[in-house]
């Protein structure tokens, strides 16, 4: 099950937080357990970090507030130690944080250093990517993180029906392609050669935040792109290398791409106009965004499509 959605505005910024929320909320029946967003705001010279210090359902209890505050201070201390100049650190929840920093060093070293703090998990790193995910449906998460006012050019989202893993943040989509900046993926399906690819990518020095097969896709694509391949070429490679039934959407700092496996077993519907491209598991999500009859289509098997801001 699960539902995925993506929007890209090719003519400038829009209220993508509100747009994705409407799309994801219309697919609540596909997964009410958790909801996640990967959204791209205007890029500047600051690095944006989204990180959590505890799972939402383990963030309360005796001494927890003090522990979260202590670990937050430790994160800020480590940012300073590694040479980052902290501009802002904010939190809507007490356990999930957004920091902006000036930093020109190695992002992998930064992420690893921060994740050494107890309970810390870096959800995203980049110049414009922000991954926000939490338990509950889209409206709940949007209200919690004030996503209704988020403006940007493109983004993706995911509603999760927990099947093979827990209802927690670690299992919630989207996945950031650690340690590559500004790359994220949402996925609907199952990869049947997950362990094989996880071992291969781990041998190349990558680590994974979760046991979820979707994270493989993000890291796989970023690994190929880091070798100089385009997003489109990397996605085409993935159709040969990844086994199973899947439809996924990948976003980078200026692109959004979709891919369907050779069995076309997982749904995706596409609406394309000159300024706006929207993709979703079901038409009802497109209609929640475009309030009129529009021409949509299902991409066919082995189809890879990429759009640019």
């Amino acid at each position: 099950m699960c539902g995925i959605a993506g929007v890209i505005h090719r003519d400038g910024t829009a209220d993508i937080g509100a747009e994705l929320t409407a799309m994801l909320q219309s697919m609540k029946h596909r997964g009410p357990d958790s909801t996640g967003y990967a959204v791209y705001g205007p890029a500047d010279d600051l690095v944006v970090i989204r990180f959590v210090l505890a799972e939402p359902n383990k963030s309360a209890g005796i001494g927890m507030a003090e522990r979260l505050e202590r670990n937050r201070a430790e994160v800020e201390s480590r940012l300073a130690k590694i040479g980052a100049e902290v501009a802002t650190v904010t939190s809507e929840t007490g356990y999930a944080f957004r920091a902006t920093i000036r930093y020109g060093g190695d992002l992998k070293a930064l992420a690893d250093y921060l994740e050494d703090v107890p309970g810390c998990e870096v959800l995203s790193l980049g110049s414009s990517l922000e991954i926000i995910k939490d338990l509950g449906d889209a409206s709940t998460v949007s209200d919690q993180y004030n996503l209704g006012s988020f403006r940007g050019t493109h983004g993706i989202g995911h509603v999760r029906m927990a099947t093979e893993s827990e209802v927690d943040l670690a299992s919630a989509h989207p996945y950031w392609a650690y340690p590559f900046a500004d790359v994220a993926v949402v996925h609907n399906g199952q990869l049947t050669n997950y362990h094989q690819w996880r071992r291969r990518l781990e041998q190349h020095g990558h680590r994974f935040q979760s046991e979820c097969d979707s994270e493989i896709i993000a890291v796989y694509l970023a690994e190929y792109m880091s070798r100089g391949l385009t997003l489109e070429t990397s996605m085409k490679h993935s159709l040969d290398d990844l086994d199973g039934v899947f439809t996924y959407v990948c976003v980078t700092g200026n692109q959004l791409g979709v891919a369907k496996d050779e069995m076309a077993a997982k749904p995706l519907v596409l609406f394309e106009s000159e300024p706006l491209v929207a993709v979703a598991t079901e038409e009802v999500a497109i209609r929640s965004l475009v309030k009129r009859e529009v021409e949509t289509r299902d991409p066919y098997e082995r189809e890879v499509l990429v759009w640019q801001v």
Partner: protein
Amino acid sequence: MAGVGSRSGVSYDARGLVEPTADMPDNVEVEGGRARFDAADLTIRQINMALRKLIYDDGITDVTILNPASKHSLAVGILKRCRIHFEGSPGWFACGLIDGPEVTINGRVGWSVAENMMSGVVMIERSAGSLTGAAIRGGDLIVKGDVGARTGIDQKGGTIIVLGDVGINTGFMMQRGRQIICGNAGMNLGDSMYDGEIYVAGTVASLGVDCVPGDWTDADTELIERKFRIHGLGDPPEFQKFVCGKVLHNYDQLEPSERKLVIH
């Protein structure tokens, strides 16, 4: 129509996915045995409630539903002769399990339209998603645009006509009935089919297991011309015919123990 409350037996819904109550919509216009209502602000449950009341309780035989807005599971299980027109695009599972209605849809439909249809006609002016006409047993299903993958999977009867292209695994495990594809077909056409006929006017990416070219007969010409004439589809193009090779499954009436004796 007066607003009448309705309750189901659902009283607990931990995930907030169920619509336990629904009020009968009060925007239905009835005139001269015909009815129409705007579904834009109605829930799935309300739309189906109104449709069923009109057809079954009020004896209306011609209903137009405006602005279905891709909502799922509309007009499912209607077992009566009537006309239903969708002015717009329904979502997934539209018109499943119907027996008798003539449905026209001037938009697009999502996955699994007319699944398990038993009789009647469903005419779609634009494209359709995957699993179009899955397991239909009878009736005519016409899509004027393209359709997704697995069209007519497990088809047990009836006729599916697609004026555009079809995706992978079209006619997978079909058991009976006909598919008339005017565009191109994706990979594995007719894979593991038991019986039935598939006609394709365009190219076929590949044939599935035990799907083979069939001999063209006058009955094939008569069937296609008749279907195109009945549904006003113009002149049919030239088709290739594909059938089951009858080597994959067992088609004799022998018990497994008897088969061993015969084969060996």
